[in-house]
């Protein structure tokens, strides 16, 4: 009997992340974001879990990018932006008066849609953040570690002093990931990290994400639903609500294990979006 049970567990595919073992890193409660008077996202409640990949999907304009930017206070950089509700990171109010946004962004890194290396050498791109933070001890070692973690080391180890701009798009994106992880963040936010890449480079980024979740919590915004299905443990679907006055705002429609979202979503709007019937 015991042997049979073990066998079943080993052969079990697509085991959903054990709900009991989850630990919420972010807890959003009633989060709304406004740009001036315009409400971009409305009343979002969500827990984002440690060392899992969470994908945010939804149609254009539903507030996916706005939402992910609230997670490391990048929305602060937009003068008209305002957040209401409560957003806790490891139990601390992320928007509390004593919280330093720069420290937030060190702990919660971000990778953007278009690879944006600095016009410097490969080495300096990764070392940049470390130098700013004064982490100058064993700089070479830290740079190598970050490049290895970003699965780029073997490709660039012999040309670290070359310009980063000479790398391919996929390599540049992995360099940006190396730059993000060099400062040893806890969370990596990725906003459409592979949408400008070809399928091979995309696959490399997806493999990398899978590797990185051993040490980091990842949140990815993607338009590519198959990508969400492939890489994410949890998937949040954002949709658009139209108010009686015609204004539109993003709302969190459904949030569940990725397998559930793509085989048996609970909400008709999710079903419509993931099957491509609308949105």
């Amino acid at each position: 009997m015991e042997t049979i049970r073990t066998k079943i567990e080993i052969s079990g595919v697509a085991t959903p992340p054990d709900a009991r073992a989850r630990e919420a890193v972010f807890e959003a409660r009633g989060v709304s974001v406004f740009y001036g008077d315009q409400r971009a996202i409305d009343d979002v409640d969500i827990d984002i879990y440690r060392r899992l990949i969470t994908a945010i999907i939804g149609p254009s304009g539903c507030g996916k990018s706005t939402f992910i930017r609230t997670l490391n206070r990048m929305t602060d950089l937009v003068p008209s932006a305002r957040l209401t509700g409560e957003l806790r990171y490891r139990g601390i109010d992320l928007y509390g008066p004593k919280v330093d946004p720069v420290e937030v962004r060190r702990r919660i890194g971000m990778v953007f849609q278009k690879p944006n290396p600095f016009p410097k050498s490969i080495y300096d791109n990764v070392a940049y953040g470390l130098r700013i933070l004064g982490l100058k001890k064993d700089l070479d070692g830290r740079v190598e570690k970050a490049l290895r973690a970003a699965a780029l080391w073997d490709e660039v180890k012999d040309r670290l002093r070359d310009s980063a701009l000479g790398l391919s798009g996929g390599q540049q994106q992995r360099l940006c990931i190396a730059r993000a992880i060099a400062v040893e963040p806890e969370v990596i936010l990725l906003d459409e990290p592979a949408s400008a890449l070809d399928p091979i480079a995309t696959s490399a980024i997806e493999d990398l994400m899978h590797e990185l979740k051993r040490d980091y919590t990842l949140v990815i915004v993607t338009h590519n639903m198959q990508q969400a299905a492939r890489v994410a443990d949890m998937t949040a679907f954002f949709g658009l609500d139209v108010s009686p006055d015609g204004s539109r705002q993003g709302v969190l429609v459904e949030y569940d294990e990725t397998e559930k979202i793509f085989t048996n979503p609970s909400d008709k709007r999710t079903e419509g979006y993931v099957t491509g019937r609308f949105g």
Partner: protein
Amino acid sequence: MRDLYTSELEELEGILREEGKLVDRAIRGALNVLARDDLELADELIAFDDEIDSRYLTIEQRIPSLLARQTPVAGELRLVLAILYINLHLERVADYCVTVAKLAKLAHGLPRDAGVLEALEEMGERCREMLDTGLEYFYARDFTDSQALIDMDRPIDRANRKLIDRLIALGPDEPQREWAMRMMLVSRCLERVGDHAVDIGEQAAYLVRGRFEEFTDASHKTNIK
């Protein structure tokens, strides 16, 4: 693209419906072969399996292509999987009908027993009803409970048991014993048809509810000895 995809799904379901109707004709045909001891009809029925196989193969070949090109998800994924499995079940049922026809040929000319034939006819008709019910759940996407199918399956299992008792009672005459052995296999085929009908109902339930559940657990069946 979306319209093309939808019409492809509808077309596949249309082929499955055709296949379902053909399989029902095959079961009816098998029952007639038995009742009339009709060799000619038996050969016709064996040849008729090609009709069913061609539908089966069409679906079997088109689904990988659909999966590769359209990557269905959610309800559409469940629909494609349900079509794939139901297709397989229907093809198996058709094969059992062919086996019945072949058994009838082997039993031709041997002494028959009216009581046994009546019981087989009864079993076969229950099988047709079950298959119809299972497929109807699927077509209507209106699956409410599994009890109807399980209830229909029970008389089949009981009839199968009764039949065995009756066959044993037929006595020591050798040709009669040979006929009895053939009919036991026929009974087994029909009983399996009922099981496939339950499986088809389970696929319909999966499509509607989004999770798979077995209606009855074969390893814990208590109603057959």
